[in-house]
């Protein structure tokens, strides 16, 4: 795995740190659903990335631009169609795909816009979620999925296995995939997927179109 250009200081989300390792130095990056710009800032600081962001929340966009990041207020479902093919080295969707209205279209757009796509998502197949649903008979609420079902923006939750199926469906190839357990340890997803699907709380996939290079 690539070492970051400069040592990473401060506390960062484990999935962000992994994404920063996946991104090559100096790359052009589009972060869809960039939030307050934490990942974009990390990529700029450690990978000298030329980053852009798209974010739905007006307040978060303003916060990003105020700190000097290039971010537009927009909607992954509506606005990705505007971007030209292969405009970026990486199109990133960090813990956002489950909140889109059309995850398949969004993923196809990511694979079109970026030479590679990086997608992270909360794994609904994690044992705690399975157990909670089984034992309580109610929709689970966890650290990654903190809202009750009626207030949650996450309309399209999936498991790691579900996501892997979607990857095949859109004709993409997995270059690498890692799940994180509850304590943030990495569980590489290689041959066996069932165990990661049980133990992984969230997962990060690095993808590219099968016919592209």
């Amino acid at each position: 795995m690539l070492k970051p250009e400069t040592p990473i200081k401060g506390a960062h989300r484990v999935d962000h740190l992994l994404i920063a390792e996946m991104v090559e130095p100096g790359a052009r990056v589009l972060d869809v659903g960039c939030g307050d710009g934490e990942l974009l800032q990390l990529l700029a600081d450690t990978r000298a990335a030329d980053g852009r962001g798209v974010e739905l929340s007006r307040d978060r966009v303003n916060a990003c631009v105020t700190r000097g990041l290039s971010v537009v207020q927009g909607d992954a479902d509506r606005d990705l169609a505007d971007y030209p093919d292969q405009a970026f080295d990486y199109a990133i969707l960090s813990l956002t795909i489950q909140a889109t209205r059309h995850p398949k279209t969004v993923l196809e757009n990511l694979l079109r816009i970026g030479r590679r796509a990086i997608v992270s998502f909360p794994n609904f197949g994690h044992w705690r979620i399975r157990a909670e649903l089984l034992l309580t008979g109610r929709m689970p609420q966890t650290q990654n999925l903190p809202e009750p079902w009626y207030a949650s923006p996450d309309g399209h939750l999936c498991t790691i296995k579900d996501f892997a199926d979607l990857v095949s469906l859109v004709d993409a190839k997995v270059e690498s995939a890692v799940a994180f357990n509850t304590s943030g340890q990495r569980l590489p997803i290689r041959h066996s997927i069932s165990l990661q699907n049980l133990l992984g709380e969230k997962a990060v996939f690095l993808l590219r179109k099968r016919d592209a290079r």
Partner: protein
Amino acid sequence: MSSAPVKSFDQTASLRLAEANNPSSKVLHLPASEPLRLACDQLLAPVSIAYQTYGTLNAAKSNAVLVCHALTGDQYVASEHPVTKKPGWWETLVGPGKPVDTDRFFIICANILGGCMGSTGPASIDPHTGKPYGLNFPVITIGDMVNAQVRLIDHLGIDQLFCVIGGSMGGMQVLEWASSHTERVFSAVPIATAAWHSSQNIAFHEVGRQAVMADPDWCGGDYHSHGKIPRNGLAVARMAAHITYLSEEALHRKFGRNLQERSKVTFSFSADFQVESYLRHQGSTFVDRFDPNSYLYITRAMDYFDLGAEHGDVLAGAFRGTKTRFCVVSFTSDWLYPTRESREIVHALNAVAANVSFVEIETNNGHDSFLLEEPVFFATIRGFLNAAGVKRGLKV
């Protein structure tokens, strides 16, 4: 307009005409041998460009910020207006320590071509007749205004502007600069603007122009020769336009149905309501500082603006290959240049993978928000310019 103290015709006209032909600010006089080729295919010469500068140009000439003014603005962006004696029109944003910081940047603001504060316009003396151009002035475009500014930037020896910034019609000029002279624009901040003038906006402008032209004192555009000014016509035009710069909510908050210095309505057509009195005042003070024919020409230039049309109706074509960093800003309550028109610019920039930020500011102050103290807006401009400055290698 009876409510405001009326200066004598001579005072008003002579003060304004003096500024139109012999301004208090610096002026670049382009010689007759360097005419400006206009979009209408006419050559205009000689051309004067009146401008103000603030701050200091650094040795590398890399810290120049061009401020483009709106329809009724002028070059006095951060210093006293010579006719009205009011502070600069954008002193909220531009000045020492302000987001557009005169301690860091070299700020340039020029009166637009067609204006009436010293740049060549319909109130300027036509050298062929020795009289003001009036309607003999050619119809100009936003592109013509920008081409005149290009001559000024050439004259100042600046290859690349660090930033071109402006709101409303100023934003149109920003877009034109970024499209036609992209390599000379490091960063661009189009605010509360659009890439083309909407039908509704053309309609409002037409109302304004018809008000001016319906005033018998307009004299077919030749009011200067007749010693007249179409005061009422221009004031009505300004009153109508002023409503479009605000929002229903802002008007209601400011005036409601409050009566003007009276306890009940007078059953007459005098200014019973505060909002009437306010508009009449806006109209009459505007006439003191603005040339009616300039108003016709500049509104026309805005009407003609359609950046996409020059690129086969594909706006993205206007920005292909751009390296400029953009920060597009709109305001929620601006119904003259609504957010969707800014978003259209953003979509076009995304389509060419340009470096673009887009911020919509929540406010109920309408189109005029860009001239007001809006903290989130100011923080955005400051943050964007700081980040762009780092990229440009400017000292923080």
